[in-house]
């Protein structure tokens, strides 16, 4: 009989870092976070940046990461709280209150990292942070070229862990008040260094650039614009290019209200709404893969959703049709996307695969998503801004 102590196979695996990592790689991020409590050795493995990168990459599906949930924030309200709309499974996401600041605005979400601006008691910007809400890791950004008073200053993030473990911060800043002359600075986390004024460019007021609204996709950072043209940056080559924006539909003299700019599966989308007493139209445009033009993918009438879901009450408030927070996510068929919309407290989506309106998230009969704030008399006066949340253990 063997006098040695018999070690079980499970224990052998537990003692073998490589094998253990193979198992942990296949766990959802939430379980990994939970298992930090198992032992100090597990904590060390789970917090190891190389392991975290491997785990994040393992979540990729054919070159893309899929969001776990959408975080909905009410526009203009600066609290660190938000509503969570699950896309895959139920997700609890800790609110941003670990970034101790009086107020917080999310600027952009990018494949697992968020860039936010912190506000002081007077609602002035006191700093910028990047953070990963899953691990609650956050870092204050420091700029070589700080914002100048009364000059525009925009911060964006370029990050795709499936392509590179490093991220870049792109700053667009006006050199003189109201000059419309901008300089572009780029920070690379790989070298922890800034390149100042890599490009200097001028826009015209009519260009209606919305530098605060940036979308990173296909290795390029695109900015929204309410004019006929817009700009995007090839982040690798660090060169700025122009791209067209959808021209106003011929014969449509109505004023545009919102351009919801987003991406899914490597394709850029733009959903446009127009000003009207009761307006329920959403024109969804998709960018051609060669960036030559946009084509109108579909003119959605959100009012059609009321036929499928009679409990929705849209258009009951003048000029506030009751839908907002338009976002684009992937669907089962890879080539197609779903348009996700907040409508009257529920989250619905239009699936381009089968041209059907579906309920994406219903908090329950009689419950609506939309925290009642004092500033609003009616639920539909709130506008939601959706941010994609990727449950990820990525360490930066």
């Amino acid at each position: 009989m063997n006098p040695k102590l018999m070690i079980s196979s499970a224990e052998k695996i537990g003692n073998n870092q490589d094998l253990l990592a193979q198992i942990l790689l296949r766990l959802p991020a939430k379980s990994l976070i939970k298992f930090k409590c198992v032992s100090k050795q597990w904590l060390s493995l789970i917090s190891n940046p190389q392991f975290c990168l491997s785990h994040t990459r393992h979540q990729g599906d054919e070159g893309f990461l899929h969001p776990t949930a959408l975080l909905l924030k009410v526009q203009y309200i600066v609290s660190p709280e938000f509503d969570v709309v699950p896309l895959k499974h139920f997700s609890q996401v800790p609110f941003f209150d670990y970034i101790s600041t009086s107020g917080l605005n999310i600027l952009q979400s990018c494949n697992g990292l968020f860039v936010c601006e912190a506000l002081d008691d007077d609602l002035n910007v006191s700093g910028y942070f990047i953070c990963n809400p899953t691990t609650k890791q956050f870092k204050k950004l420091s700029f070589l070229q700080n914002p100048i008073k009364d000059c525009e200053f925009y911060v964006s993030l370029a990050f795709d862990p499936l392509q590179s473990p490093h991220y870049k911060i792109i700053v667009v800043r006006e050199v003189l008040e109201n000059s419309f002359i901008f300089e572009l600075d780029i920070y690379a986390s790989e070298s922890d260094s800034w390149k100042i004024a890599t490009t200097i460019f001028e826009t015209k007021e009519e260009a209606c650039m919305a530098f605060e609204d940036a979308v990173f996709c296909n290795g390029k950072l695109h900015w929204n614009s309410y004019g006929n043209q817009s700009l995007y940056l090839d982040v690798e080559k660090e060169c700025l290019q122009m791209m067209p924006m959808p021209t106003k539909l011929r014969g449509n003299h109505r004023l545009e209200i919102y351009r919801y700019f987003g991406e899914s599966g490597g394709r850029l989308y733009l959903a446009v709404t127009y000003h009207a007493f009761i307006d329920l139209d959403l024109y969804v445009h998709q960018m051609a893969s060669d960036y030559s033009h946009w084509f109108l993918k579909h003119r959605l009438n959100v009012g059609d959703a009321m036929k499928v879901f009679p409990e929705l009450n849209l258009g009951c408030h003048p000029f506030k049709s009751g839908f907002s927070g338009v976002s684009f996510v992937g669907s089962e068929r890879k080539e197609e996307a779903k348009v996700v919309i907040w409508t009257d407290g529920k989250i619905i989506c239009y699936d381009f695969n089968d041209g059907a309106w579906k309920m994406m998230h219903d908090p329950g009969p009689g419950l609506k998503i939309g925290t009642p704030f004092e500033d609003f008399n009616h639920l539909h006066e709130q506008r939601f801004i959706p941010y994609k949340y990727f449950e990820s253990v990525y360490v930066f």
Partner: protein
Amino acid sequence: MGSTSTKIKLRTSDQKVFEVEKAVAVQSQTIKYIYENGCPDSVIHVHSVSGDILSKILDYCKKHVNSAAGKEDISPEELYEWDANFVKVDQNTLFDLILAANCLKIESLLDLTCQTVANMIKGKRPEEIRTTFNIKNDYTIEAEEAVRRENKWAFDMLGGVGTMVIEELADDTMSKCVTNTKSRVCVIAANQIVMMRSISKLANKKSIDVYKQPQNPTTPRIKESVKQRNVGTGFIELFFHFKCKM
């Protein structure tokens, strides 16, 4: 000249000898390397694998080789199901398979077995993980508490304002979930009474995809323990509503 009926002999740790077709045996990168760099007629020793485990592994390799070569008429879905049944074994055997797949370098089997273990442990609590892998807890009480507090959200199954649709739950997770003492829990479903255990069993089924609204939503009630909650069924749609007391 390579012959499709070339056989390779393998001897296990418990001295059992297996004679297998070369195409099947070389699914293992380890065996392939030894065979190609050694004497083709000699017996290959697989020291760390027992006869029972090797026998199972050879079944796996044979199935996958035959399916890829078109010798067996089996669709990808059927193969996927065969794999799912293959890993329905007791925990010890599963871990033995991982060790063997690792040592024999059979990537697809390692992937399959590791994924199976991951699915098995993902809902467990840290204490249960320690038991499974026989891990010594080297945290001080304060240190462990600090880590738990920092990542509280990952432990709560339920909590906060919102609704949750139950998906895959480990069998005893529901009964151990933590509810905030300030929360109200209201479970909305249709008309019958079901015990919590059954809910988690039903929830483990992947085929819940028929949704309908319950006819009479129950009014929110306050209960201290989710276990005591009487709920309706039809469950085809289960909602846990939380309303936080302000």
